[in-house]
């Protein structure tokens, strides 16, 4: 990312962001106090939301839902429509921000072909009239046969979210939190509901840790409204794509309809997502397909369930099914892929048995040579939310400023961008000191809380007069820093201890 790119990105903020976010904030405030106790101000905020949606395909239904809700009749369908309106606003914001980014950097992005073969379609999984599309026409991952309990679980989920909305965050008490427990447990057991279960489990843990919320000083208002909204949409019939997680490393079920690609994957870095009971390593890279197709930006994700006492570098040990991928991360090597499924969202559905470790590969060199020309993937409509924007960039020749409290900004020409130091995971070796001492940074541009920030994936820094490259995935096969190894040895092997306990106690 050059000086001019950064200037264009920061100067070119879409003008209507503030207006859209005002509508979102108004809705979010209603969720704080609960739909059961709408004040005039809240009713006004909802009316503004309806006005904002007028003229869109949702306009009429939003107006109707707002009318009903204001009159005290809060039906599931009304909440769903309001959640849809908020999602549409965030989606529009996402589109404007990503388009601004692409324009500033000159990044070419494939468009989302709603009809083209291979584009992901959302097939209602609970609609008996609609059988899954035949192989090759959609991206139904796996067999997609909805279990008999799925519809009930989704209904249970909607009703719990309804209860939350009625009570409002301030009214969430122990009983509401406890009521989610069985629901989440049952959803976790249902592979097709994993996304929703992981989301709800994360939200519930936050509500529990924040109790009593009634007296909590400040609420994460935007965040919780985001999570509530997303959960409500995913729990609608047809809200989740028909999907069955592909067990790793081998699967008898193929990824139906997904394009498969062969070629060389050059890793840029890994972004780690984590809450108490889930971890996901999302690898960003550039795929050079066999033949003479243009290089493409891709992501690939491997995830596992965990518990809160498994923290730091131990989380890598949960991703046992992908030794080839983790090895390439730790050793900075390219990967040779054969017939790897690729969703039209640019996500490779990783199959470790279809990859082999290739030549050494330097992510900084990959970024320098290929990033500018790589074709970026489109974003599936339902996933369009600013939080998903994570665009790989390489910054060089900047000046680092260390602020009070340890936060960092990078200055390039007359412009500065914040470093998302709070996003650096403790499962990897990156630290704010390394970023502060760096001359090059490979990272993801993200947008949150009203601005762009760079989330580092790798830095090139001068440490004791030597140039050292540090990558977030360096410890994928275990920590390489002796201090961290020693600290880990002191605490013992959390994963092994819990697996031993599970083996002894769980199957009695």
């Amino acid at each position, binding site marked *: 990312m050059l000086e001019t790119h950064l200037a264009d990105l920061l100067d070119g903020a879409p003008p209507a962001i503030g207006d859209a976010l005002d509508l979102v904030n108004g809705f979010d405030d209603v969720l704080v106090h609960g739909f059961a106790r709408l004040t005039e101000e809240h009713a006004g905020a909802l009316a503004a939301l309806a006005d904002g949606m007028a003229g869109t395909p949702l306009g009429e239904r939003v107006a109707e839902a707002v009318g009903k809700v204001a009159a005290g009749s809060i039906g599931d369908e009304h909440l769903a429509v309001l959640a849809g309106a908020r999602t549409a606003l965030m989606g529009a914001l996402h589109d404007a921000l990503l388009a601004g980014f692409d324009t500033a950097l000159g990044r070419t992005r494939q468009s989302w072909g709603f009809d083209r073969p291979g584009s992901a379609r959302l097939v209602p999984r609970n609609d008996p009239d609609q059988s899954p599309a035949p192989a090759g026409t959609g991206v139904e991952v796996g067999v997609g046969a909805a279990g008999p309990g799925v519809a009930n679980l989704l209904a249970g989920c909607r009703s719990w979210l309804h209860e939350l909305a009625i009570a409002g965050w301030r009214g969430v008490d122990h009983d509401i939190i406890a009521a989610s427990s069985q629901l989440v447990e049952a959803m976790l057991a249902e592979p097709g509901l994993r996304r929703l279960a*992981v989301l709800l489990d994360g939200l519930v843990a936050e509500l529990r840790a924040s109790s009593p919320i009634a007296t909590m000083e400040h609420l994460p208002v935007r*965040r919780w409204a985001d999570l509530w909204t997303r959960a409500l949409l995913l729990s609608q019939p047809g809200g989740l794509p028909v999907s069955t997680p592909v067990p790793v490393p081998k699967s008898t079920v193929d990824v139906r309809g997904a394009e498969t690609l062969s070629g060389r994957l050059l890793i840029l870095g890994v972004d780690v997502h984590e809450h108490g*009971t889930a971890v996901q390593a999302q690898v960003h890279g550039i795929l050079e397909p066999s033949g003479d197709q243009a290089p493409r930006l891709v992501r690939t994700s491997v995830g596992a369930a965990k518990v809160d006492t498994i923290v730091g570098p131990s989380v890598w040990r949960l*991703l046992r099914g992908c030794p080839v991928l983790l090895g390439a991360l730790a050793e900075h090597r390219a990967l040779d892929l054969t017939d790897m499924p690729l969703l039209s969202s640019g996500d490779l559905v990783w199959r470790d048995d279809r990859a082999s470790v290739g030549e050494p590969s330097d992510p900084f060199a990959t970024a320098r040579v290929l990033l500018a020309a790589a074709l970026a993937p489109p974003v599936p409509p339902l996933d369009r939310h600013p939080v998903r924007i994570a665009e790989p960039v390489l910054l060089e020749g900047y000046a680092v400023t260390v602020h009070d409290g340890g936060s960092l900004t990078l200055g390039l020409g007359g412009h500065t961008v914040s470093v998302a130091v*709070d996003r650096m995971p403790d499962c990897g070796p990156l630290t704010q000191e390394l970023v502060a001492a760096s001359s090059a940074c490979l990272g993801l541009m993200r947008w949150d809380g009203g601005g762009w920030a760079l989330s580092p994936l790798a830095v090139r820094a001068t440490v004791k007069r030597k140039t050292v490259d540090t990558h977030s995935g360096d410890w994928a096969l275990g920590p390489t820093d002796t201090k961290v190894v020693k600290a880990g040895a002191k605490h013992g092997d959390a994963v092994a201890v819990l697996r031993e306990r599970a083996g002894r*106690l769980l199957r009695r």
Partner: protein
Amino acid sequence: MDGTTGRADRAAWQQRSALRVVPAIQPRKLAKVPFVELADGRLQGVVSSGSDIERVYVSSISAGEHAYHCSTNNNRPCGGLRGSPCNHLHALADEAVLQYGADRVARYLRVDADGVTTGADLIGRLHGRHEATPAAVVFSRFLRHLAYLELPETTEPIPELHWFPATGAFR
């Protein structure tokens, strides 16, 4: 989430999508006390028996009242409870302090947190008495906890996890 941020910062924080709400917990040795939690109005957990690898003890201290109890998962009372908290309860308090920090545990139990740095400090400030509670609830929560590790890995992207960035390197 600390109280030192100014009004402008707080407003910005409230408008963020991705942030850490649950305070970070510290790594600790799990062999002796594999499970500790602050939930259901109690500090509760599971302590492995020192003598029998097949046996575990379920120990708990209630918030506010400070009623404490310890028994095997089959509700057989712990022999160490003789008018004061047993070794299992001491171990539970020690590990809770390591995992959550003394402050957070003391606040949850509603113990004067001032000067509390160890599990022993915490136990010393309890004013409750022994009160039998069923072990089943805590034990089943522990089993559910363990069951997470039995769930299959997945390589399908979970876009929702973008709301949950891994953190912790910034101190």
